[in-house]
């Protein structure tokens, strides 16, 4: 199954992808479009991706989980295109023999995905402005060092 999808994410196919008789626990993380970002009201956003690299980096992350050999299987999907507040943007479904490994794998995959997978979002604010989200800029506090797209 492709990691990136333009269609609404459905959980059942992801669960079916990882469920197995010897896996007694499934942990699920869903990332939803939030109605605010750094104090500003958000109406929706546009996700874009570098498709082939997003697919291969995500598979690398899943391989890292599989290499631990604890019987964990993980399925991931990420939306691209226009989303509105409350839409599911990303789903991580981790199945394992016991719950601890499922929770751990779920957490690992979403954190690594956010850190490494080439996906970007452009937020539409209630005041009509549109801005690319830059996680590295949000760590900067002084207004002088903010980029040209933060004005």
């Amino acid at each position: 199954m492709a990691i990136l999808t333009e269609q609404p994410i459905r959980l059942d196919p992801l669960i079916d992808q990882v469920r197995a008789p010897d896996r007694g626990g499934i942990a699920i993380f869903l990332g939803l479009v939030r109605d605010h970002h750094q104090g500003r009201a958000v109406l929706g956003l546009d996700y874009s991706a570098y498709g082939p690299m997003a697919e291969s980096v995500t598979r690398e992350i899943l391989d890292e989980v599989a290499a631990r050999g604890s019987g964990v299987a993980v399925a991931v999907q990420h939306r691209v295109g226009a989303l509105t507040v409350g839409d599911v943007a990303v789903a991580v479904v981790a199945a394992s023999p016991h719950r601890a490994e499922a929770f751990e794998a779920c957490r690992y995959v979403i954190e690594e995905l956010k850190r490494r997978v080439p996906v970007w979002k452009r937020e539409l604010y209630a005041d009509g402005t549109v801005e690319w989200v830059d996680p590295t800029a949000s760590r900067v506090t002084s207004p002088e060092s903010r980029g040209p797209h933060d004005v």
Partner: protein
Amino acid sequence: MPDLTVRLRYLARYAELLGVEGEELTLPAPATIGDVVAAVRARHPAAGQLPPKPLCAVNFRQARWDDPVSAGDEVALLPPVAGG
């Protein structure tokens, strides 16, 4: 050494900044990622707004500044990722 040609991809905010999503670039061989980015800066005045060392990928894998590029490579310039 002959010149080499790479395919460039600009993603997300960088495509908007440069006004183009992709193009070909020919430069003298041998060349590194750093040489490619320098050539992009020379071609596009707006590239002055790129960070000093933007995140780059060669053939869909993250690359380092000194990594060599080969003819036909796809070299991508990536803004800081913001998925999830």
